[in-house]
């Protein structure tokens, strides 16, 4: 998708572009292993994450167990997404026509730069110098807050966790629970430091903290004329957009202002109204461990005299067409941002989300971020997994994340010494006599000492190497069984 409307398809030349560098939040400043090492040293972070992911895991597993047709629902979710990706251009044009017919305005953004410019200009046209925001991954991805601030517009996050992150001058570390890395004592400190007019007697009771945020946000809801949201789903046949949230703060933003601007990744479209029935069963149980989502807001263009009278939809590509072009990797576009894969991932549980350097952390981030940016720009992320497979089992739309990780590793730039060693190993293993000689040499080599040289010293830093056996299996076989 590029250009306006369907023109992208007819003028398409060459490979679709990836997300541009220098804008947005898809690239970290250091490779995963280095960022992870620092996170692993933070005992408070490790405790917060273990407690939070463990709690969500148990809650989600319990409510999934209640659904007898969960496997069929997952298969249906996967099938709908696969069908959507197979005819994405057609569905997006259908969506554009339906939104337009209902009084909304559709904009097409090739990348983060274009999306930020479109939203900034729309806000400026209203004369507002402040917008309130519904929690949205797409706007985090493109760095919209930074772009608005640069234009003198103040963005106010209204999701409680996003507000904590914004007030703490922090970055989100989880797709669904952006402040999962903070405990309530830390949140109290952030509110005392950064929330205007906060009661200095604030305690760290969850209800007290929520009430403070509520007082702070209520004024914003009533005094702000423009809101920016993302979308969980967009129904092509009706032009209906959907936002799924737990607090009701999103509902305030979606109903109170005069102007509503929604930024949505192009993969969020679904063909039919009835398809919502599948995803609204899958999403809450897989994500928050709830049976039904608390606040599900649906709107179709403009309803005269009710709700926002200026409704805009910005359709964002930012590398998605490039992902779609990859037969194996395109499954990553099926993601409904439930975070189940983060909550079950043994790597995420220990490193937290910041180590991934992208707004999309965890297993889905490790396959999505490198594809959106091009693998060379996020080359360490496909390796940030032990390939244990827990993410695939947890995914409500059955994204085979381990297979995509392995697929992307093949596209990553490889260290020259590693590539040479791998080629030599493959050659040796294709020649049994050489292989047997190498086995014996390896056995002798390990007698030299317990610490291996770099890069293998990563092993011996915390683990002993096994002592060499007296003979290899094939030597034993030749002595005891061969020819018998």
């Amino acid at each position, binding site marked *: 998708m590029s250009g306006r409307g369907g023109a992208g398809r007819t003028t398409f030349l060459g490979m679709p572009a990836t997300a541009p560098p220098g804008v947005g939040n898809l690239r970290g400043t250091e490779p995963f292993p280095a960022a992870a090492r620092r996170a692993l040293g933070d005992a408070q972070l490790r405790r917060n994450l273990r407690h939070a992911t463990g709690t969500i895991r148990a809650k989600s597993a319990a409510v999934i167990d209640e659904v007898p047709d969960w496997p069929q629902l997952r298969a249906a979710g996967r099938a709908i997404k696969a069908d959507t990706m197979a005819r994405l251009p057609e569905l997006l044009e259908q969506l554009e026509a339906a939104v337009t017919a209902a009084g909304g305005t559709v904009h097409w953004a090739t990348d983060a730069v274009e999306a930020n410019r479109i939203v900034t200009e729309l806000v400026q046209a209203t004369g507002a110098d402040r917008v309130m925001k519904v929690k949205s991954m797409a706007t985090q991805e493109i760095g919209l807050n930074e772009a608005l601030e640069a234009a003198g517009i103040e963005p106010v996050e209204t999701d409680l966790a996003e507000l904590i992150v914004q007030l703490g001058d922090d970055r989100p570390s989880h797709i669904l629970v952006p402040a999962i890395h903070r405990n309530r004592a830390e949140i109290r400190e952030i509110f005392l430091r950064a929330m205007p007019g906060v009661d200095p007697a604030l305690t760290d009771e969850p209800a007290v903290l929520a009430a403070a945020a509520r007082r702070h946000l209520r004024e914003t809801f009533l005094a702000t004329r423009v809101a920016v949201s993302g979308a969980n789903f967009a129904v092509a046949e009706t032009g209906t957009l959907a936002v799924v949230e737990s607090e009701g703060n999103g509902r305030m933003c979606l109903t109170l202002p005069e102007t509503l601007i929604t930024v949505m990744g192009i993969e969020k479209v679904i063909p039919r109204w009835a398809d919502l029935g599948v995803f609204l069963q899958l999403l809450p149980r897989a994500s928050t461990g709830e049976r039904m989502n608390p606040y599900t807001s649906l709107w179709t263009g403009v309803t005269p005299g009710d709700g926002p009278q200026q409704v805009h939809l910005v359709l964002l590509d930012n590398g998605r067409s490039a992902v779609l072009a990859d037969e194996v990797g395109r499954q990553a576009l099926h993601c409904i941002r439930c975070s189940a894969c983060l909550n079950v991932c043994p790597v995420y549980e220990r490193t937290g989300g910041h180590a991934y350097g992208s707004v999309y952390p965890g297993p889905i981030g490790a396959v999505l971020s490198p594809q959106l940016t091009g693998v060379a720009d996020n080359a360490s992320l496909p*390796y940030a997994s032990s390939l244990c497979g827990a993410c695939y089992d947890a995914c409500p739309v059955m994204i085979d994340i381990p297979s995509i990780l392995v697929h992307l590793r093949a596209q990553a730039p490889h260290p020259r010494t590693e590539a040479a060693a791998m080629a030599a190993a493959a050659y040796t293993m294709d020649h049994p006599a050489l292989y047997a000689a190498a086995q014996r040499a390896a056995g002798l080599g390990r007698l030299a000492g317990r610490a291996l040289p770099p890069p293998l010293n990563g*092993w011996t830093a915390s683990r002993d190497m096994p002592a060499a056996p007296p003979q290899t299996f094939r030597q034993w076989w030749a002595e005891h069984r061969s020819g018998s």
Partner: protein
Amino acid sequence: MRIALFVTCLADTLFPEAATATVRLLERLGHQVDFPTDQTCCGQMHVNTGYPDEAVRLVRRHVRVFAPYDVVVAPSGSCVGSVRHQHPMVARRAGDDALASRAAEVGRRTYELSELLVDVLGVTDVGAYYPHRVTYHPTCHSLRLLRVGDRPLRLLRAVRGLDLVELPQAEQCCGFGGTFAVKNADTSTAMLADKMRHVLATRADVCTAGDASCLMHIGGGLSRLRAGVRTVHLAEILAATEADTDPPGGRDRTGPASRDTAAVAR
């Protein structure tokens, strides 16, 4: 039954006792074991590190070596997972559809040890004797790629003298992950630390599993801690009988440290 042993490069080179135990066990059950000596490595390390093109020749070799056999067994869930799930993919990726279909055929006839025993040979009581307190770690690839389920536990429950204790949070990865343990050594170690904590909480003498690779990782960490818990492959426990004079898994596997801990454990 004539059964080909796919030994795996790791068991062949570093953990031959897992492989010899597999041979002794199957022979005791009345089967003939073949070891095609032209086999080397399934290529999983290459594929999972990002070198599928280098792995093609290893896939071709593996398929050629094992195509003549009706039944192939390996003492590894991970390597069987690689043969079953990755070999056809690697071949297709290289544009060799004929190899892909032959690889899929070999994959269908290749079994992890507990699958072979329970599903193909129809036994759960293999006549083993192993008088130790044992905990079982289900390795990720046997659990989630092969879905061996409770087959290893059914086999262990039938072993005479064995005191089987449940491992807390058993289904959590131990942190090995092949080259992950080197490329992301710190994260791998953090995962290992939790796995070891759970193993030690069982107060077992022995931690067993169906993969020598994960056991090398867990055992390497336990040895460094001088924790006094040995790692022993499932095949060795199932091969053990009253007639054994040496306790299985008794070989000094992990260098000087484990000599001290063996004394502590006794």
